[in-house]
């Protein structure tokens, strides 16, 4: 069985400060890891993925994520947050090619 945990329901940061959204996973074998973002009244949008290769993955809108196998983590980061980054963020993992397990989501609020 595979599972994803996002330990923080909410993250609040000031604009211009670094943003981190935490994610840990439990997957048998090599994990496929993803981040999606959901803006209000919009569908989920893909941000980035880790399949293999470099542990630091860069994605859309200046986001990046670091795969840490020993800690089974895949935290999402942005060096300087914007008010427009305020949204609901989902981490997802898979042990095979198509069945994603999503975390419960983390609401990010960036204050001006």
């Amino acid at each position, binding site marked *: 069985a595979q599972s994803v945990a996002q330990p923080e329901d909410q993250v609040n940061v000031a604009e211009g400060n670094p943003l981190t959204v935490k994610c840990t996973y439990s997957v048998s074998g090599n994990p496929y890891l993803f981040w999606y973002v959901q803006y209000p009244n919009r569908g*989920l949008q893909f941000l980035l993925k880790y399949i293999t290769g470099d542990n630091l993955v860069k994605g859309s809108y200046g986001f990046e994520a670091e795969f840490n196998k020993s800690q089974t983590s895949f935290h999402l980061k942005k060096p300087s947050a914007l008010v427009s980054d305020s949204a609901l963020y*989902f981490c997802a993992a898979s042990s095979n090619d198509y*069945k994603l397990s999503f975390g419960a989501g983390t609401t990010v609020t960036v204050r001006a």
Partner: protein
Amino acid sequence: EAGVVQSPRYKIIEKKQPVAFWCNPISGHNTLYWYLQNLGQGPELLIRYENEEAVDDSQLPKDRFSAERLKGVDSTLKIQPAELGDSAVYLCASSLVAGVTNTGELFFGEGSRLTVL
């Protein structure tokens, strides 16, 4: 390019009534998914189609839920009869080819929010 289109966006029904949700995936996307998203939780897969074939429906409650994807394009998800616990958002997603590793992303619609009274 048009995204994944779902309708209706909102639906309120009495328990024991039937309800149907429709999804039009991105043109050319062979793989279509239906997900269930309960309040405060992440999406959970209900069914996955490759063209017109349901290749994974293991999470679909078949006593009351059914789905079809005629001609391998549009899809319909039906609940009959609806129960109070079915209140949730039903998400449709599509991808160009099978497997998240190939495309790296699913394209999601805005969802259909169901309220069962």
